[in-house]
């Protein structure tokens, strides 16, 4: 098992003929992802890495079973591409693109919710069901199969933590990048609920950061979970009013502070690591 995607997931790549799309198609194929097609308007009929390219998502779904799509589309055109995938009936949409206008993100998330499409991102590294399927951009080598579910708002920090887990013999069921923007498709709770139900997952690592109240909301659910949760929250030393790279990572009007999040998580029974490298050890203690 795993959540959201697995070894049977048929994936298309929107923007497959661009530099990013081409490079990561290669990487995903190397990881074992079942990529069944690419979409690039005006490039239909070509092939990329042996994968057929279609002009539109509609054409792709007419020709292939498509379960998921990943977008390598520049921000100004991402909403259009996302709407195309959603209205064409794609059920999992991974939006790697960063700097999508927040109003476009609200529109995407609203339509996806209405049509029953799961949106991973925007501004995410993607999602990996380790050993089965990778949709997105994280480096292949750190993701190995195992019992730990990981859900995170940031990218490289997650690789760091996943790398540490793997180095300590702790593989992952699924690693989900929610995305660094203020409005993203999945919330921590959405993913925690799935991990709670997933037989493969024995413990969950939550990688949060300052800003918003996603971690506080997650805490309410963690309280009810049977599976243990270890958390790390980035941004302890960040000053209020400054955006730390991510649109969501900003302490405004005294809300979304590090302390508030840590207190909520601890009150819910989660262990909170002070530094990223402590995560595997905390997991080990719990799973013993």
């Amino acid at each position, binding site marked *: 098992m795993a959540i959201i995607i697995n070894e049977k997931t048929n994936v298309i790549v929107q923007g497959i003929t661009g530099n990013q799309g081409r490079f990561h198609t290669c990487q995903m194929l190397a990881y074992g992802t079942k990529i069944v097609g690419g979409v690039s308007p005006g490039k239909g009929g070509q092939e990329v890495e042996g994968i057929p390219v279609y002009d539109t998502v509609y054409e792709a779904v007419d020709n292939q079973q498509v379960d998921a799509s990943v977008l390598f589309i520049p921000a100004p055109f991402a909403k259009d591409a996302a709407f195309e995938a959603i209205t064409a009936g794609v059920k999992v949409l991974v939006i790697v693109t960063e700097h999508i206008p927040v109003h476009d993100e609200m529109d995407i998330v609203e339509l996806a919710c209405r049509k029953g499409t799961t949106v991973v991102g925007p501004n995410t590294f993607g999602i990996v069901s380790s050993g089965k399927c990778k949709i997105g951009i994280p480096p292949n080598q750190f993701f190995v199969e195992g019992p730990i579910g990981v859900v995170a708002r940031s*990218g490289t920090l997650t690789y760091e933590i996943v790398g540490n887990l793997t180095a300590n013999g702790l593989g992952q069921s699924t690693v989900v990048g929610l995305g660094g923007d203020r409005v993203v498709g999945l919330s921590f709770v959405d993913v925690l609920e799935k991990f709670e139900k997933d037989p493969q997952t024995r413990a969950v690592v939550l990688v949060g950061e300052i800003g918003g109240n996603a971690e506080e909301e997650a805490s309410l659910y963690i309280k009810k979970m049977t599976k243990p949760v270890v958390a790390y929250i980035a941004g302890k030393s960040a000053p209020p009013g400054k955006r*730390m790279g991510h649109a969501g990572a900003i302490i405004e009007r005294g809300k979304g502070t590090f302390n508030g999040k840590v207190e909520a998580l601890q009150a819910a029974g989660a262990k909170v690591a002070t530094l990223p490298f402590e995560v595997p050890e905390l997991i080990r203690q719990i799973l013993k």
Partner: protein
Amino acid sequence: MKLFEYMGKEIFSSYGITVPRGRMADNSQDAANIAREIGGTVVVKSQILAGKRGKGGGIKFASSPEEAGEAAAQVLAMTLNGHKVEKVLVEEKIQIDKELYLAITVDGSAKKPVIIASAQGGMDIEEVPDEHIVKQYVDVSIGVYPYLGREISRQLGLTGSIGKEFNRLLPILYKIFREKDAELVEINPLVISGDKLIAADSKMTVDDDALFRQKAVPYVEDRTSIEKQAHDLGLAFVELGGDIAVMANGAGMSMGSLDTLAYYGGKPANFLDAGGGTGVEGTTKAIELLLQTNPKVIFINIFGGITRCDDVANALVQVKNAREIPVPVVIRLVGTNEEAGVRILKENGFEAYKVMHEAAAKAVEIANAS
């Protein structure tokens, strides 16, 4: 991107929201002239990208053109909350029967716009008790229709012509919020003045990521010089005032780096997310930015995914060869092409750490020792 009050009011007015009559001045003489045009008592309001101007003396009343000129001169000499006043808005003084609060913003948790309104306006909304705040989420696929105005004005207790005016105003404000890609539009206070509703102030933040399609919105620079350079390079950079210059790839990783430094007692000079997959040239420029903060030590923390370790190493060598690097560099380098990167560093006299917190501890040690 925050807009000045007068810019927001110009937008409001162009959409049909009533604002006080007034114009901008950047000197005493112009302010006096505007006051003469308007007649009667005027308000001279400092234009800065921060709130609480009144408490700092940034808002003054003047009952004659001469007084207005004097008030403008005083306000234009001020620095409020760290912001130098460069312009004032000279406006008619409006009759205030009651002050309301009205805002529309993005609710990240609900993933949709939220309308926030209160019959207790004029003060910071954070200070208004919850039971006096009306919140209404908006379905973006529907938008805001008069019925939502009617429901909110009912809850606010607005009746008669003021209620009708509110119902007219709300869809307009939402239109501005959507069409201008605003993260926030706020009218505080929204003044009941006789049978009119007047936007006596405006606060508006436009989504930086949408500026490419908001050519009609005036561009307002609110970055420090280094932050601006970083922004032009496509890097996320925030000045923090400490003595350890930091570069990492990824926003979370960068925050994690700052936290780790702080944990060991260090004071970061900045936040710099070099992003993923930045090549030699970009990394070179990022390192040069770091040097501008005059740090005691540079801490580079790279977990190579898309970013290649050899690129980072080459960039560092390039900077070293092009100019003297006057401070020690502590670098942690793992991931894609790690071996090549570490070898390049060694050949050029840099040591590479494998473990993040060990490197961070070392950087702090150097900074605090010097």
